[in-house]
């Protein structure tokens, strides 16, 4: 009892208590429940059965792991594509476009107001047979467009499209953090524009690239709508499997095991990246 009052004696701890309780109930508890369910026998709905590893066995004996690879593969491809697309755009927003940067930033931000699903269905109308793009091409130029919708490429396109702001804005910040005098100094010391970029701007803007990559990777691994809407369920990402297990198949333990596996893989990858690239060191804060 004495122990307890002394723990709560500090005003900081007392003030943080409501948030701690909320997080414990709203975040930690469901997570623990999911972990618990993943060790329950298949198709059961209680947490008090004898623990078992059968769900994990099912994942690897079935071909369910294929969807895990699809998810990881698509997420990785999304990150790489976004890095390649966003760096020049972010660079332009910070250094080149001047007053137009504000307008462009707004144009990149406004779509976020519209629900992701609605935007994806917009793309369906755009790409579908006889839709905006193929229809226009046929009518104006007589060109027949091959099938793009409901292919893995369309899924990738959708993911790149949806997660672009999450790569672009951290990158913009990263590039903006490189002081102008740093670039001038490098140039004054004899560096060509390309050398200034390679030796100074790129390394100093890596924190933005890293944060953007982590953010988009984590989001993209959890993506589901792109594959459903633009992929026409031709590809089943792991998130879709999890959804099916929890809903249609009524197999909560299998869904929980898939979710735990996904969490593990993502956390390990994120930890590896964070270890390899010490953000503080890149920023020169040590």
């Amino acid at each position, binding site marked *: 009892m004495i122990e307890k009052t002394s723990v709560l004696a500090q005003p900081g701890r007392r003030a943080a208590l409501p948030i701690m309780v909320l997080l414990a109930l709203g975040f930690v508890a469901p997570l623990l429940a999911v972990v618990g369910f993943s060790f329950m026998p298949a198709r059961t709905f209680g947490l008090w059965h004898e623990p078992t590893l059968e769900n994990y066995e099912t994942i690897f004996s079935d071909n369910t792991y294929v969807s895990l690879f699809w998810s990881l593969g698509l997420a990785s491809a999304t990150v790489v594509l976004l890095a390649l697309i966003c760096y020049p755009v972010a660079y332009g927003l910070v250094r080149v476009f001047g007053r137009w940067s504000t307008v462009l930033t707004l144009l990149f931000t406004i779509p976020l107001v519209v629900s992701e699903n609605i935007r994806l269905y917009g793309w369906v109308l755009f790409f579908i047979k006889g839709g905006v793009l193929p229809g226009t091409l046929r009518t104006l130029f007589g060109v027949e467009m091959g099938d793009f919708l409901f292919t893995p490429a369309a899924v990738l396109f959708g993911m790149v499209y949806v997660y672009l702001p999450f790569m672009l804005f951290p990158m913009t910040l990263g590039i903006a953090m490189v002081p102008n*005098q*740093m670039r*001038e*100094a490098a140039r004054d*010391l004899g560096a*060509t524009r390309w050398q200034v970029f390679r030796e100074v701007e790129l390394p100093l803007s890596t924190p933005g690239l890293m944060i953007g990559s982590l953010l988009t990777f984590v989001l993209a691994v959890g993506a589901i709508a792109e594959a459903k809407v633009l992929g026409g369920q031709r590809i089943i990402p792991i998130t879709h499997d999890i959804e099916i297990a929890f809903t249609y198949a009524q197999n909560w333990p299998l869904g929980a095991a898939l979710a735990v596996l996904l969490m593990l893989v993502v956390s390990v990858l994120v930890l590896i990246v964070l270890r390899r690239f010490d953000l503080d060191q890149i920023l020169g804060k040590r």
Partner: protein
Amino acid sequence: MTGTSEPILRLKNVRKAFGNLAAVDDINLSIGEGEFFTIVGPSGSGKTTLIRMLAGMERPTSGDILLRDKRINDTPANERPTCMVFQSLALFPHRTVGQNIEFALKIRNVDPATRAKRARELMQQLHLPADYYSKNVTLCSGGERQRVALARALAFDPQILFFDEPLSAIDYKLRKTLEKELKDIHRETGKTFVYITHSLEEAMVMSDRIGVMRRGKLIQVGSPNEIYSTPRSRFVSEFMGDVNVIPVESNGAGSVRSQTLGASFKVPPAAIESKAQCLVVRPEFLRFLNSPSDAQNSLKGVLYNEYALGSRIQYQVRVGEKVFLVEKLRQQPFKGKLDDEVLIGWDPENSILVADE
């Protein structure tokens, strides 16, 4: 060393306009080989714009910049044999001390062994401990970072070094040390240094010649001694520190008259010009007098306050509305009491007539 040597850098009618504003306005200047030239001016006087044009980071709107008689207006910074030490120093935080110093050599594809040798030489010359070679540059102290920046600039052996107020953010004591070190380095390397500062005091310590800038124009160029003892305008004389400035008008041969003080003063005969003028008397040339006949010019006032300035004591004397500053050595203080009536005076040869601008 003075400006008598062969000019390395010449500026002809150099002008830089941003919109309608001329940041640098019609500058003509010749800087000698091996000279330590300092440009002094208050903020907004255009000195930074000027040095950025010399280093190749800005392009003049009109006029010519000549490096050994070759026009370099359009030569980009990376192709000029010059280097700048920035106010922020702009050291690369993701590189070690050694990598920072070697940057220019790496860019020029010098092999790693030669690079390291040069870096270590420079570190020794600039009193940087040898084990700093692989130290993260962000862990260095202010003074060490100054030295790294200087070493980095010297590494590729540029012909001219530019300095854009690198010492302005350093505390007084360290600044004094670094000023002297910089002058030593100037002597050892024999390179041309062009330095920018808003502190005339700093300029006096280091420079062979000083150019004073105001509103984009170079208003006076001369040795530190010339700038100090014969300023041509009120602005330059006031920029040098505390001075007594009396607006006057010509009063015939060898004499000027002050309306506000209602008094006439004898001046050096050659000095009088017709346009609006000011009489400048430095506080150290003003004396307390026992009788008006002790000096050729004298004024009666009231001792208002005194300030200890280290080696000297400064006295504030009020003559009507006008405040005069008198300085005496600490060892020979004035024995008057505050609010005493005092007599102050000076001799004509210790005063200067300058343009009122």
